[in-house]
């Protein structure tokens, strides 16, 4: 269907043109990586690798999450409020395409964000990995960012134009801090370590941490992320259905 490709390109272009969005999405993980690289000893051993590599994965995961939550959440809520989503419903586009296009656009943006953080790791942190490991790491982090893309869209459906931004910010903070993206979970109190086990952010980064340590990514991590994707997807479908039923909302 030609309309879908056109719509996706339109969405991605709009995201890329939003300087504040691009600044936050690229700037946050890159700046945090550069700042906190030396908080720990960059060569300190952690989870089978060193800190500079471990933290690069953390920040790539963080970047993918920031990209997806901001792309979906804040913008979708604003578009629902403005009436644009309703206008799209009176075009030939299938009604589910708005949701799938938003998720796809988040995924499209997440890939370069992951790559930029990896590049920062290479150039600023001095991370050295084999070519194959770089490739696998990129693909794994990117593919498993799906629950973030879905969560972003879900937030956009649940929040209003005013509440979306604070909600996205809160989620970003909670998921990254309690998911061990800034402080490794091993350094957290035991209670918080258990909290991390429930968070998609922790499992997302865990896949990457395994790759850089030369281990096979754990099926449990992938399974939990898949479960989150499905759960968020179902919640979106339900919200979407409710909104469709209220034709003039």
């Amino acid at each position, binding site marked *: 269907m030609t309309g879908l490709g056109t719509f996706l390109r339109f969405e991605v272009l709009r995201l890329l043109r939003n300087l504040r969005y691009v600044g936050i999405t690229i700037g946050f993980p890159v700046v945090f990586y550069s700042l906190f690289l030396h908080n720990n000893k960059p060569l300190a051993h952690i989870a089978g690798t060193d800190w500079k590599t471990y933290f690069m994965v953390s920040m790539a995961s963080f970047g993918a999450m920031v990209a997806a939550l901001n792309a979906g959440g804040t913008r979708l809520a604003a578009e629902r409020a403005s009436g644009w989503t*309703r206008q799209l419903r009176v075009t030939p586009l299938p009604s589910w395409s708005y949701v799938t296009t938003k998720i796809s656009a988040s995924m499209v943006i997440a890939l370069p964000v992951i790559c930029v953080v990896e590049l920062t790791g290479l150039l600023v942190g001095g991370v050295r990995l084999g070519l194959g490991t770089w490739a696998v790491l990129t693909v794994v982090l990117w593919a498993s960012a799906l629950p973030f893309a879905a969560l972003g869209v879900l937030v956009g459906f649940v929040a209003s134009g005013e509440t979306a931004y604070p909600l996205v910010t809160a989620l970003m903070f909670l998921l990254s801090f309690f998911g061990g993206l800034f402080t490794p979970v091993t350094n957290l109190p035991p209670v918080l370590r258990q909290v991390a086990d429930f968070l998609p952010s922790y499992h997302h980064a865990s896949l990457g941490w395994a790759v850089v340590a030369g281990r096979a990514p754990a099926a449990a991590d992938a399974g939990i992320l898949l479960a989150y994707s499905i759960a968020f997807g179902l919640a979106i479908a339900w919200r979407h259905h409710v909104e469709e039923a209220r034709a003039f909302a």
Partner: protein
Amino acid sequence: MDGAGAPMTISIMSPRGGTTRAGDADAGPALCFSGVVHRYRSLVALDHLDLTVARGETLALLGPNGAGKSTAISILLGLQHPQEGEVTVLGTDPRSAMKSGKVGAMLQVGGGSGLPHGVKVGELVTMTSRLYRHPSPIERTLARAGLTALADRQTQRLSGGQAQRLRFALAIAGDPELVFLDEPTVAMDVEGRRSFWAMMNGFAAEGRTVVFATHHLDEADAVADRIVVMRKGVVVANGPPSSIKAAVPTRRVRFVSEGADPEELGELDGVDAACVRGSEVVLDSLDADATVRALVASGVAFSDIEVTGADLEQAFVALTGNLAEVHTVEDAVASHDAGSERAPAL
């Protein structure tokens, strides 16, 4: 005005000779409601609605808030399914008609602009055009909506009237056979409304079907081939503007008189309401002949007398009853139709 009277039903079926577009094989009606019922909990929004619109017609849908106009339009657009009855649009069901790209719509947007941000006018029209199988050339759509000079402007920098024109451009970008406009000139100033309808007329003159809902009765009078007045989910009047006005017995007697006493004039035969502003007197009469005779007999000095038919606003009030008592469906269903508490009259 006798608000309690049973709503009179006028049925004058005289759709303008449908100037069907060349190469249009299926010449059935543009849209057809038969026996459509739609309820919101206990509120009946559409009560066995029957309505047919021929291809090429320009139809105005009038009615107080809660009359069922928005519900009818949302069903026509496939946004809602009727609970009973059948609806066909361009010979098929509403959703399929929308998917075929032969239908365009401009919806009410409440508080927002109805437009995405971070995109230029020309880009948005281009993107929307590409969603359709046989769109109009983009330059043509822009020109039609008077947006050619604004093609490079970001959508968030448009004025209210410009945003409205852009939403119109999006509605016609796919070169639709049938266009729905739900209160298209809301919040436009007089000049904006005038140029909007000039634009619309050019579009309709190509043999397209246009259905619009409005609270501006003068627009319906000037633009529509046919007016359908709805009240409480049923059609209470259906015909060209002139027959709707003619069917209302009220006449307006206007003259100039110094020091006229409205109380005294109100007592004259046939007078329903008397209004005196300075030396200008306006009497609404249910029997203009008797009123004029009584006026002459009363000995009141007057000049420049003029008797005219009801205007559409009077007809509307007569047809829909006491406007204040009508509860809006939209209100009852929560704030779906934000900011729609405008008085139906101008």
